[in-house]
Structure formats: C-alpha cells, structure tokens
C-alpha cells in the first residue's frame, strides 16, 4: 500500500486523483504508525518550508519519514516534499529533514519568479522511475530550488535563465521539483513508473 504523507501542506487530493486514474490505491498517512506500515511513500507539498516542517514535527512525521527512507522504502518527494529532504532552506531559514546533504536556495535567475509553467527535464541520469523522461515537459510552480552538496544525487536538470537540479535520486529515494500529478500524460507516466518501481522493490 502506498502512503501519502498528510501534513496539512498540500495538494494531497491532486496526487490521490492521479493515483486513482492509475488504479493504485493509497492511504493517507498522518501518524508515524501509518508511515511505518507503508510499502511506498509519496511526500507531496505546496507552500513554505517552515510551517511544513513545524506540521511534520507536531505529528511526529519527521522521524517516521526519515526512518522509512533509511530503511529503503521506495519514496517519491514532490516539490516542497523534495526540498524538505535537504538540510536547510533559505526560505524562512528553516531546518529541514537532512536526509540528503545540501540546501534549498532561491533560484538565482534574471527570469521571472515564481517559475510557473511547463519546462523540460534535461540531462536525465538513468533511473527506473525516470526512464523515457528525457526532454519531457512538466509543470513547475516554485521559487526555491535544491542545491545538493554531492552532484551524484542530481538526476535531472531544468533551465529557467540558469540550470537547476529538478530531480534527485539516491537508492530507492526519488525527488522531483515539478508536479507529476499536474503534468498530463508525462506526469502520469512518471507516477506509473514509480508504482512499478515500488512493486518491484517490494517483490525483491
């Protein structure tokens, strides 16, 4: 069963609807217990880092999410849900989960911010979930981007005036800056890849 982390920051519903289209059932996880039983986790998010981290801590979800990732549970972080995996965010100076080394910074671009709309995923590193995604356009809405300390984590890049890391992977963990649940057929395909990946990991 896939757990959708509910910490009150979210477009949970959109993700739920998209999974429904793919005939995948999911549970809404709002307690550490829900997370502990998950076979795969999707960590969505829209909004600012500090209130999101406060909401996670209030519910004890910060430790539960970190533990699940360390245990190798297939994990997909979306937008803020990817950013919170890093150590620190320049958005309100919030301390984050620290699962991945690096920070979250305002995108240093001359172009308009927020970066809203469809943009392409380029320079994709091989990963089962990102298979066939090179050059596909996805829907983005954000002003901050992740800056991984180790380039090996970067799995995809997007350019808005300047290039930034728009996908990260490490073992069974995947994070994307864009919103697959709002990115039409390309987004649904990515979610489907993740579901297959999670099934394969569970069978292994």
């Amino acid at each position, binding site marked *: 069963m896939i757990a959708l982390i509910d910490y009150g920051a979210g*477009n949970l*519903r*959109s993700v739920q*609807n*998209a999974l*429904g*289209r793919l005939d995948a059932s999911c549970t809404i996880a709002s307690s550490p217990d829900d997370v502990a039983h998950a076979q795969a986790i999707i960590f969505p998010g*829209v*909004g*600012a880092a500090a209130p999101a981290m406060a909401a996670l801590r209030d519910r004890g979800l910060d430790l539960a999410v970190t533990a699940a990732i360390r245990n190798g549970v297939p994990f997909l972080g979306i937008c803020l849900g990817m950013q919170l995996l890093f150590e620190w965010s320049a958005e309100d100076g919030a301390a984050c989960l620290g699962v991945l080394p690096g920070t979250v910074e305002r995108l240093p671009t001359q*172009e*308009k*911010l*927020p*970066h*809203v*709309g*469809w*943009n*392409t995923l380029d320079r994709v590193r091989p990963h089962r979930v990102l298979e066939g995604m090179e050059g596909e*356009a996805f*829907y983005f*809405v954000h002003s901050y981007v992740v800056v991984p300390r180790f380039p090996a984590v970067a799995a995809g890049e997007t*350019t*808005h005036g300047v290039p930034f890391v728009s996908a990260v992977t490490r073992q069974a963990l995947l994070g994307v800056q864009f919103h697959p*649940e*709002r*990115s*039409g*057929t390309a*987004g*649904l395909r990515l979610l489907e890849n993740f579901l297959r990946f999670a099934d394969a990991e569970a069978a292994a």
Partner: protein
Amino acid sequence: MLLKRIIPCLDTARGRVVKGTHFQQLRDQGDPVALARLYSEDGADEITFLDIDATPEGRATLVELVERTAHEVFIPLTVGGGIHDVDEIRTLLRAGADKVSIQTAAVQRPELITEGARAFGSQCIVVAIDAKRVSKEGWMVFTHGGRTPAGVDAVGWAIEAQRRGAGEILLTSIDADGTRAGYDLDLTRAVVDAVQIPVIASGGAGHPKDLVAVLTQGGADAALAASIFHSGAFPIPETKRYLAGQGIPVRL
C-alpha cells in the same frame, strides 16, 4: 526553457458550458468535464473555468463540477467568476482547483488578494483585470463583466495586485474581446513591462497568428482563448504546431 502556455477558457453556468462548442467526438457538447478532458488530451497547458452564474445554487454546482474535473483532468485548473472571499477560495481549492481567479471583488477590496496569498500562497491567486482603452496611452479597469468603470488605471492596478501577492495576472482587453481581430498587443506589453509576475493575455484571438503576436510582441507568458478552440476552427494540436513553426517554445 520555460514554455509558453496555451489555455482554453470554458464559460460555465450551472455545471454546463454556456458558449457553443463543436466537437464531433463529444457526445455531450455541454459537459465541461468532457471538454476539459478533450482539451487536456489535445495538449492544452492549463484549463480555465469562468463561471458566469454567481448565485448560491450556481456556486454549489461549480464546486461539484471542479471536483468531477479534478478526477479526470491532470493539468492545472483555474476557476474564476464571482469569487469574493477567502472561504470561497478555500472551497474551490479543496475541490481540486489549482488556482482561483479573482476580479471584481479584488477591485472592491484589494485586501482579498493579500488574504488569499497569505492563506494559500501566491501561486494560486490569479488577479483578473478587464481593461478598456480610454486614451492614447491609457487603459482603465472595468468590473461586473466590463460594464462598470472602476476608476483605476489598468497598469497601476496590475502593479498593486502584484505588490499585494498576486501570483499571475489574467489580462483581458474589453476592446478586443469577441472581435477575433487579435489581442490588444499594446495593453499586454504595457502590463508585461510593469510587473514581474506572469501575464496571461486574453480577448481577441481569431487565428493562431494572433497567439504568436501576443506571445512575442505582446510579451505574454500565456495566451488564453475560447472561441477559436470551441468552434473547432483551430484545434489545439494544430495551433501549437503552428506556434512551434513560428519559433514559439511550446509543449508538443
């Protein structure tokens, strides 16, 4: 690079499309969900619903319509028409809208922009501006479907909307709307140059070349249109291929 967006707009009332559409592949021409799904499959970058029935019964139907659409359409959905407080914004976002478009209520009480942006983030607050040329250099804001002059300069109002937390501007030229003679390029350029947030141009599209003009000369980030898509004259895939052929970066 960031792609230019093409956004079909559906006028709705009581859960139905109110302007005629002509799609042989659709059994129910008046069902906004079926039409939104068709446009999404055709490659629309977003969908906008503009509800012209702001009665309480109409509102309840709209919320239900948004819920049904969110189950079937997986691209961003903006909903506008008669929204006047934060509770209504919350209800529509919870139902599955990604953004709400506020217009008359924002002019009457600009704090609404700030309240909406604080509660839900700027990314989901679109301020819609209906503007009409009143002099050689100037455009004024009109409300209530273009009937009531608001006594506010359109470019100045766009700047204030941005300052108050708007995430995007949906700019409609009252002069061009319905003419199919092209967007008001001067108006669009004036607003684009005055704000840093994305501007969606609306009103006047009659041919894909009009979209090219407003996305290049006008500098718009997105082009919204209704009748050129609804009439079946220029389907979205052909329109986007035409734009790509003219060097406009679009999602194909």
